[in-house]
């Protein structure tokens, strides 16, 4: 009797293990692979780059191989790589970079280009349009060779970034902006200093005065922004001694480092949305 009870307990335990794992596997699948919702500011200057993140189930065979964006022929992508692996999903990363500036001189006059979807070349040979969130490509001449030069920059995985600049000739700082400042709200904080003074505009800055920026993305784990990659090109607008208006771009990025729990919540939300 005891032997039979022991035997049946083991059988029930094994069946429960298979049932639980199959159920967990089925209820934790993404309806389909997709790009995370990004906020990207980038310039089409040669060398500027950004990252796209794509999430798919571990056993999905159909994956993005490359991406192209209409109107940006100079944009190239490195091969897709695995960025993070979770129980049932993988997060892939595609790095886009501009090889050369736009050949079309009229594009600069047309102003920034706003993009919401991209053409994706998939591993099964198909081509599809996919939403990536919001991407703004600045195409104007930034006035290269200006009197402000970056002297250092650092970033950490918690989203804290610092950057310092050197002013070689006197300038007048006119403003500091980004297309996503309002959208990010309290999820992006920064402190900008001219020398030891907090920045106010307009402000004349003497040669030799250091400019420093400390920025962070304090996004709580339960926020919708938690899984949102952010690539910012903060714009410090100034006028040089000759009265020429210039822009100093300050790159600021937040890469997603989601936990298994955050991915599970994301998958749940996607499954709810698909129903």
């Amino acid at each position, binding site marked *: 009797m005891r032997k039979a009870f022991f035997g049946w307990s083991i059988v029930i335990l094994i069946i429960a*293990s298979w049932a639980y794992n199959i159920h967990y596997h089925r209820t934790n699948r993404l309806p389909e692979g997709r790009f995370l919702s990004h906020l990207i500011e980038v310039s089409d200057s040669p060398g500027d780059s950004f990252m796209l993140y794509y999430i798919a189930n571990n056993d999905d065979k159909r994956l993005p191989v490359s991406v192209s964006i209409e109107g940006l022929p100079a944009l190239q992508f490195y091969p897709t790589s695995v960025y993070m692996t979770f129980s049932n999903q993988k997060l892939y990363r595609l790095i886009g970079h501009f090889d050369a500036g736009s050949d079309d001189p009229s594009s600069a006059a047309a102003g920034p280009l706003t993009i919401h979807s991209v053409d994706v070349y998939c591993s099964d040979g198909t081509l599809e349009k996919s939403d990536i969130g919001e991407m703004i490509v600045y195409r104007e001449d930034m006035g290269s060779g200006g009197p402000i030069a970056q002297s250092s920059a650092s970033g950490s995985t918690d989203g804290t970034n610092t950057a310092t600049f050197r002013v070689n000739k006197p300038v007048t700082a006119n403003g500091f902006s980004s297309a996503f400042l309002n959208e990010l709200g309290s999820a992006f904080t920064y402190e900008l200093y001219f020398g030891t003074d907090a920045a106010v505009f307009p402000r004349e800055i003497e040669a030799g005065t250091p400019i420093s920026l400390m920025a962070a993305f304090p996004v709580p784990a339960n926020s919708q922004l938690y899984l949102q990659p952010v690539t910012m090109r903060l714009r410090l607008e100034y006028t040089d001694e000759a009265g020429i208006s210039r822009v100093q771009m300050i790159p600021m990025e937040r890469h997603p480092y989601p936990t298994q729990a955050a991915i599970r919540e994301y998958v749940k939300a996607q499954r709810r949305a698909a129903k």
Partner: protein
Amino acid sequence: MRTACSQIAWGFGLTLFDFRINGFDLLPDVLGFILILIGLANMPDRQREFGIAMTAAAVMLALSIAELAGAMPATVTISQSDRSYSLSALSAIGLSTLCMLALLYGICEGFARTAASIDRLELARSYRAAWQLSLAMGVIMLFVLPFGLNGSIGFLPVMTVLAGIGQFAAGIWLIVLVRRFGREYAAA
């Protein structure tokens, strides 16, 4: 009897060891299961459990042929904790483990009863102990296997490797017991 025991022992040996060169199995399981089937068919003492072992060996022979022909998912080795495995691959391992347990039960219990019938009680106890070890390892394998579906389970490779080593040890023990039984039966 001695020849039958030798065939069963060799058959087990072929299924236990996996020598591959460029992916080609030099000791194919198919040959091992055929030898086990021939050995069991040649057993002079017809125990009911040998029938269970023959059925299990026939199923495993069919599965091995299907795998050779590419009709079954290729055998996967659970060695990484940071990846997940497909349901079809894990089910194939699960089915194979179940059949192997049925085969081991049939052989161990069949030989244990035959040994008891000729007053080799210590040998009968050894067969039952070998079966209990195989059962314990098989149960561990069947319990942890489905966790591979959801990946990133740190204990999975450790448990499957330990259970695999346990099953291997039980297999070696069984080969020794079967050969010993062949010799003692001939001497009795």
